[in-house]
């Protein structure tokens, strides 16, 4: 296990560079929208300003949660899973109201899953939700003896667990990966890499879409997604991944493949949650993060990129 102490972490040159880069980008965007507002006081980009402000909050929480101590990082991601699972089961229309109490077992699975990630037990980490919870939740539902809508609950609760607990917990598992000779940034570097590349890919797809967007990809699912935004984001994200590869043990070509996979799976995550929202008939999953919507609106792409990138890097360099 690789549990770097926090002072060692702050001496890590690569990670400091990325934190400075994140803050630099935030300052740049704050300055752009600040000047824009000064020039056109009537036509302020209000949504962009509130989005940027929320980015500041999220970046600060994320950096602090990864800097302080591994325990804090695990607890923070567990809390993220918990809040996202609550958001998801509250808005879901496919989960019968009478079975909401059963989600309590889903909440109780969160500390167990993160514990397996913390001790670095790869096998239990992999089977606990995809196998054990998929048996346990239907079993509990059967024990309650209410048949009406039980098939829905049997499928919906485990699916929610897969999306916001199993997938998101991969982020925490990066910290439990063993050390590799000649690779300094460690699990924290990988965590920073995947979160940064995923989020910058979201932002880049958004910016390219706003600048050049014409041809819609999936107009019925997500009307704002265009081919121009997707391809532009994909290409720039491959470059970003290439330049940030010093956070990972990957070679140049490997990092570009990673960038391609992250951009692609990030897009899939985004439109999947969009489709769920369309089905329910809501625009955002909540109002926790001003300008962005709910928590799920922000971590939708991460839920797809984290496991993909984790297993890519695991099979390339850790097995």
């Amino acid at each position, binding site marked *: 296990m690789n549990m770097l102490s926090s002072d060692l972490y702050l001496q890590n040159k690569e990670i400091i560079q990325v934190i400075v880069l994140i803050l630099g980008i935030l300052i740049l965007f704050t300055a752009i929208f600040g000047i824009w507002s000064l020039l056109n006081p009537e036509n302020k980009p209000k949504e962009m300003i509130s989005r940027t402000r929320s980015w500041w909050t999220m970046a600060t929480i994320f950096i602090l949660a990864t800097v302080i101590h591994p325990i804090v990082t695990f607890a923070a991601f567990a809390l993220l899973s*918990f*809040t996202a699972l*609550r*958001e998801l*089961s*509250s*808005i879901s229309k496919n989960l019968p*109201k009478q079975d*909401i*109490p059963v*989600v*309590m077992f889903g*909440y109780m699975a969160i500390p167990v899953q993160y514990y397996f990630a913390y001790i670095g037990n790869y096998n239990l980490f992999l089977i606990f939700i995809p196998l054990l919870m998929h048996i346990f939740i239907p079993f509990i539902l059967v024990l309650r003896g209410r048949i009406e809508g039980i098939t829905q609950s049997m499928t919906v609760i485990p699916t929610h667990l897969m999306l916001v607990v199993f997938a998101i917990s991969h982020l925490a598992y990066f910290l439990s990966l063993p050390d590799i000779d000649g690779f300094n940034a460690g699990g924290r570097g990988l965590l920073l890499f995947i979160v940064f590349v995923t989020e910058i890919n979201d932002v880049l797809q958004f910016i390219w879409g706003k600048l050049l967007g014409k041809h819609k990809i999936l107009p019925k699912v997500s009307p704002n997604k265009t081919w121009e935004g997707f391809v532009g984001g994909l290409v720039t994200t491959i470059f970003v991944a290439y330049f940030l590869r010093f956070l990972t043990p990957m070679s140049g070509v490997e990092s570009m493949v990673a960038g391609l996979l992250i951009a692609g799976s990030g897009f899939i995550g985004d439109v999947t949650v969009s489709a769920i929202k369309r089905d329910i*008939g*809501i*625009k*955002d999953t*909540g*109002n*926790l993060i*001003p300008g962005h*919507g709910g928590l799920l609106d922000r971590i939708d792409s991460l839920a797809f990129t984290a496991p993909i990138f984790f297993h890519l890097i695991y099979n390339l360099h850790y097995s």
Partner: protein
Amino acid sequence: MRTVFLTLVYKVGMKFFLQVIIGVKYYNKKVLKNQKQFILVSNHNSHIDTMALMVAVPFRKLHKTHPVAAGDYFGNSRFKAFLTKLFINGILIARSKEEKGEFGDTIERLSRKLAKGNSLILFPEGSRGEPEKMQRFKKGIGVLLKQNPNVCYVPVYTNGLGTVMPKGRFLFVPYESDIYFGQPTYAKSMEVEEIAMEIENQILKLKEIFHEKQRNNELEDEQLK
């Protein structure tokens, strides 16, 4: 002392439990800030309703805010009555004529509290009932407001707490719920039944406005402020 105790219970413990664990969201709760005295009137689905409303009360007024609780339920044992007084700051009242001997005349006792400048939390449905279904209001609120026309009431719509912990369940489950405050209002009519009806309609209207705003994404959570 009492203020410090209640502040710790509600503004620290309960607030954390309700907002971080259960996921209760408050809207428009700033209307309570400038009110010296008020009667919070709300629909009733769960024991959590009372706690959730107490959390919204500004801490200086906590010790002077009394939820009105059913004597036959919360007062049926000495221990329960003690807990209700200690943690809920509640007033036990009679729900039927037979209990009057035990608790005294309800309206008279509540009026006395109001005369001393206290605030009340009232659930005119009289019982929690089926989850997420509103029952007709009892007219006691009308009598109280008729006798105290200088006290304003604040209609509140609560949504989802019946799922968190409905009647008959003793374990909660986290579920995103909402507390939506209306504007402080003085009773317009002088007829007891009309006042009760007016408040009931206001809460139904709040419910409509709330769900309309929720659909259109116009709500702003006050949780983090």
